[in-house]
């Protein structure tokens, strides 16, 4: 049970959150202009690094806000949380 620091509510148990996968994957501006390959990439391909990963969480059982986190997927350590729209912070 991770302790996830919601940028608004503070640290809460992982079970209060919904995981949203990779952060900073924008909905394409003009999907119709994309090739099938490009569209498939948007739909199905996400980074899956072993190490630091910028990802999305939603505090569904709390303030219902989506936010981003940089977490090390090898250790589960959360290095930073930041709000949607903010750039990914520089982490060690």
């Amino acid at each position: 049970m991770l302790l996830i620091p919601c940028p608004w509510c503070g640290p809460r148990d992982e079970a209060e959150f919904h995981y949203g996968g990779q952060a900073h994957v924008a909905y394409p501006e003009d999907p119709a202009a994309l090739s099938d390959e490009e569209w498939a990439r948007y739909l199905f391909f996400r980074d899956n690094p072993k190490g630091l990963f910028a990802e999305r969480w939603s505090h569904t059982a709390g303030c219902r806000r989506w936010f981003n986190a940089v977490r090390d997927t090898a250790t589960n350590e959360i290095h930073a949380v930041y709000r949607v729209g903010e750039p990914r912070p520089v982490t060690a």
Partner: protein
Amino acid sequence: MSVQPYRREGASGRVLRFRFDGREYEGLEGDTLASALLANGVRAVASSVKLGRPRGVYAAGCEEPNALVQIEEPFPEPMLQATTVELYDGLVATGLPGQGRLADRPDPARYDAVHAHCDVLVVGAGPAGIAAASVAARAGARVILADERPEPGGSLLGTAETLDGRPGREWAAEEVVALAALPEVRVLRRTTVLGHYDDNYVIAVERRTNHLGAQAPAGMARERVWRIRARRVVLATGGHERFVAFAGNDLPGVMLAGAARTYANRYRVLPGRRAVVFTTNDSAYAAALDLAGAGVEIAAIADVRQAPGEAWAARCAERGIEVLTGHVVTAAKGEGEVSSVEITPRVGGGAREVPADLLLVSGGWTPVVHLFSQAGGTLRYDEELGAFTPGETRQAVEAAGFARGVGGTGVRTLRACLEDGAEAGRRALAAAGFAMPAEIAVPSAEEEPAAAPAEHLWLVEAPENDGDYGTHFVDLQRDVTVAEVLRATGAGLTSVEHVKRYTTAGTAHDQGKTSGLLTGGVVAHALGVDVAELGTTTFRAPYTPVSFAALAGRDRGPLHDPVRVTAMHEWHAARGALFENVGQWKRPWYYPRQGEGPGEDMEAAVLRECRAAREDVAAMDASTLGKIDVIGPDAAVFLDRLYTNMMSTLKVGSIRYGVMCRPDGMVFDDGTVIRLADDRFLVTTTTGNAAAVLDWMEEWLQTEWPDLRVCCTSVTEQWATVALVGPRSREVLARLAPGLAVDNDSFPFMTWRDAEVAGIEARVCRISFSGELAYEINVSSWFGLALWEAVMASGEVTPYGTETMHVLRAEKGFPIVGQDTDGTVTPQDLGMEWIVSKKKPDFVGKRSFARADTSRPDRKHLVGLLPEDPGVLLPEGAHLVETSALPEPPVPTLGFVTSSYRSAALGRTFALALVSGGRERVGERLYAPVGADLVPVTVTSHVLYDPEGARRDG
């Protein structure tokens, strides 16, 4: 005390009666089952799992590998260690051959869980743990001190050491009582910390009533899971003694030296009359002296070292105990239990056989590093200790006392543990941001003799002429011998994990607490490598076994998952409705008519309910549909992006049906959208998807379109909803809402009106999911029951459930998301091209409709099926094939039946199905394999009833 022949004199306490293996015994309050059995001279407690060899008590705590018992009364419980079962009056137990037995009746006990938070969690209430907790607690920190035993003291319980001039056990008891009196301290006894997870989330289990036997209060949870979130953790978990591999080292009468010392001191039980001691370190000398003091004759101490601790040797000499340095025990001998011990000099000289009924073994001490390792800490091999000790960790946890291997000579020294514990307490305080307390006095312990270094001997080599190593056990509980380890390494296995799996060593109930390192040592020996290099197998939670029921807690039966009900639920239940689980909701499924004789069956009830809806008037509790208020100047734009059809053109006062897709183009949810104002919509969702759709909306708004000024608020339970259906629904509504103009022109299809219905403020929507004239009446859920009762008051409205609702909508070809779709179905597949906007430049899912696979003509389409025999009901889930005889498998399927019913309106059975290229097959005959038969069916449009839509206006 004559009935307890091995009980020391002066033992006191209440006499408890118990039965073991069918015989009655007496023990004393404070006993474990193991100590009570030893007091009664019971040597063989269980038999081994593979070889069926008799096994006796080997240890005195949770590391016990041998004495596995089954509790029979007061309630059957499989496989416990006799060393951890507290004795109580009426206990009935049997020894186990390695397999436990589950009860065949329900467990009546209660279980629960509780969350706790603290600045410092101290695991282990031995000298180091108490010292750490005292320092932290007196500085005002919130402290939890957890210990697995019934009383604090840890190692002090087994020794005769004194602290501040008091017996160690008394010191510990008083310290902990004082600690527990502090407002911010919680002391948890009989509480084993089982697992150490990320972010210092620590799981412990408290055994609260076991020791009370049949006297356990009924309302009290038997076991409690503690979910502890600690800012700092101090692991003062001590050490486990290990044994040495030699011939016959499993015979009853062979025992860990420290355990024997505990039996003599703590339980006042003599584990035998005449003992040989076999050791690699100084700690067994203290054991020998304590036992000698208690009346056990110590025949000899065989020390593998040439140079034992001088002071210890001298004390033994004083007592007339023979110390044989540079000797090993080559064999324990006896029939069913130890009767003699073979001692051999390591260099030169012959063996000698010493009569004894007890062989005390100390192969050194292993720090308990399980939790540290679980927490993600690394381990490093400590040469002096001959064991792995805590290394680096990124979590806020540290080990203290012997768990950290303090002392330097491989044995625990009390002073070092106390000081180390206090230091750990100070460090924890500093890390948690507390002011350092004034100097805290560490209690003074007796002067301990300087210890000599231990020597790490894992294996006593078998003599040349008897080299099979067949009784040199390394894992007593799994019956693994050195012979098997050698076979594994001989087979080419070089990893300790492989050897573990080949031999099963370390996988038993005790998880290799006494045997893990020993196995590693023997493997290293066999491979000719260093133990340090070989490493350990992984330490996994739980530290000691934990019952399934404890982990399940109170999330069982009705509390297993929330039961969600509507405001009208009591009425449905009283009317005898059968309920369907829809997500967490209980929805009325159908209402069998009650009366004389046997109740109506489902088929009859549903046909009756359907007829009422089609021919008369019927009502359903539709409150469970998800409802979301969507408000803001950009609400219309937002909905245009999420729904496949246009919502911005919807007029205030009107209602539109809509479908949402995922980006991959597959149908995600459907429902109606009501425009309440220019900037305000009420969206309904399917019952099961209410939360998912709200989350979906928030996700798009917050992460993709933060520029849209829209807010979404769930109002699912704000409103209770009654669907009033049937040609007479207008008449019933008119009566209930005299102020509402209900004629078709005033209140047309797909519009809504505010009105007073049965005296209740209501929003009435003209929506139909059945094709009939119908209304959905929404009121504050406080009035839901009142509205329902008012609707039912005249007695002319038939209540109907989800099954009838499903039949009615299926007759009209309306799909149910999740029943007629499975995540691979597009709106076009459902025959709903009309709902997919061509005008909007984009909406979620649109791009995917242009992919190769979504534009294939042979996709599965939703169609209707009419069995050629109108009495045959196709099973939902039946498949369809083209031929009237089945070829050899694999037979390609054309599709499958998603919904199938008997229709009162059609006077026959019918079905909906997803069929490959289905729309082009209308009129074709297909076959549904049902059991051994192939049922012929005709493909039709999915709209089977009132295709012109003539009935919706009544």
